[in-house]
């Protein structure tokens, strides 16, 4: 059963799903939803399967997913034969879920700030830039503590979907005027993600950092 990703190349949420699929070396069908500009997500056939009208949307057989972190869990669980991207080990797994919730929570302020800065879209945060900066500080602090134990990645001693869920926001920080010089650990971590086999970029993510 092939994966169909209802995609938009400029969205961080769609990028994290494309990135995981690429890191796993998976083929998938991508269908562009005409937004930014456009209201392709308001089309009746789209709302019928996805009443919230969110982009991206992943369809695989009977499974329809509209939340990017759920897509990462699903892809890892079903298609990662090595079982590393979503570890079975209870400690690493718990940390993955912790950071997925973070990615789906306050870290979404970075994308809200980005869409506001680039396309003038009204954010759902009172001050999306401030929330984004605080979220970056939290990740930086976490990575600093991990580094004291000799660890580089977010939830395990190797990359997991927690890293993939967080990476786009960090890689696109320049779009909202946040410089990496404030966050040296984040930069080191981002370089490790760049170095993974199968890594791909999106507009706004530099080829080389």
């Amino acid at each position, binding site marked *: 059963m092939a994966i169909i990703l209802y995609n938009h190349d*400029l969205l961080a949420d769609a990028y994290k799903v494309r990135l995981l699929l690429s890191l796993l070396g998976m083929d998938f069908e991508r269908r*562009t939803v005409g937004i*930014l*500009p*456009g209201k392709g997500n308001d089309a009746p056939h789209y709302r019928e399967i996805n009443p919230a009208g969110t982009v991206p949307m992943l369809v695989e057989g009977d499974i329809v997913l509209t939340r990017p972190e759920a897509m990462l869990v699903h892809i890892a669980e079903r298609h990662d034969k090595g079982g590393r991207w979503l570890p079975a080990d209870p400690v690493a797994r718990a940390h993955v879920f912790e950071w997925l919730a973070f990615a789906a929570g306050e870290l979404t302020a970075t994308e809200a700030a980005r869409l506001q800065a680039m*396309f003038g879209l009204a954010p759902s945060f009172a001050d999306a830039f401030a929330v984004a900066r605080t979220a970056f500080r939290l990740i930086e602090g976490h990575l600093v503590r991990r580094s004291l134990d000799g660890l580089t990645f977010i939830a395990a001693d190797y990359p997991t979907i927690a890293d993939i869920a967080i990476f786009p926001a960090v890689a696109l920080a320049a779009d909202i*005027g946040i410089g990496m010089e404030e966050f040296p650990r984040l930069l080191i971590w981002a370089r490790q993600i760049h170095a993974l086999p199968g890594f791909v970029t999106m*507009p706004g993510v530099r080829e080389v950092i």
Partner: protein
Amino acid sequence: MTMTKDMAALNDWYVVGISADVRPAAPRCTRLLGQDILVTRKDDGTVAVTLEGGDEDGRAARAEEHYGFIWTTFGAPNRGIFPLAEAFEPDRRVVTCGTVDVGASGLRLVENFLDMAHFPFVHTDILGALDKPEVEQYQAEIRADVDEVWATNCRFWQPLAAAASKGGQMSHYVYRVVTPFNVLLYKTCPEAPDRFDVIALFSQPVEADRSIAYPLMVVVDSISTDEDIVMFQQKIFLQDRIILENQRPRTLPLDPRAEIPTRADLSSVAYRRWLKTKALRYGSYEYEEA
């Protein structure tokens, strides 16, 4: 924020919205040259631009529609909107590509648009290749008869020149700056190599160092969907946006000593010289709010 007093800036035409987006039930609040404005469409289909706040609160500004956009002016331009014959060819697709907000002067946007040297580094594997970074000799001139800046005989090797491209091509470019804030280019069309696709970048100077960019594609392309064409252009412009957001100053220095020109900068040098002859200051580093 108040309207600029720069007469050269006031006496010109600017895009302030996409025609299709402004409907009777969907007016547009925006800002031009520091002045808040309201762009509306009446039930008879015509558009209106009204100044909001400031010394001339409520004044109607001239409004016209061309090439899929709403244009306005606060002053008295000595010419109409520039001609663009290709837009009227029956087999052309005229596709507006949305808007992008940029924290840089509109003059910076035009200067970046004129620059070929950045293709391999900023638009890697699309508009340029890292192993073919050379900008060949070309000509740039101020055409006094039409009061425009042209750069001709530009050639650049491009891995993926357009949405419809099947492979690399040696693209021929002609650049045309029609007003200080509006620029277009003609480039080899992958589908019809004897014709030129037209790509325009219109910028709305919101403030001296902030802009709204409106890319426009006027292309011969029987394959791509509108979404494909828009996506191709949006991706490229967002790559440019990173560069534009990081340039300092955010305004354009007109003093030729401020930045050292290279051979590739001929068009930029002609453009700056032209801005100086027009006495345009808005959006330049030398501009000061009166």
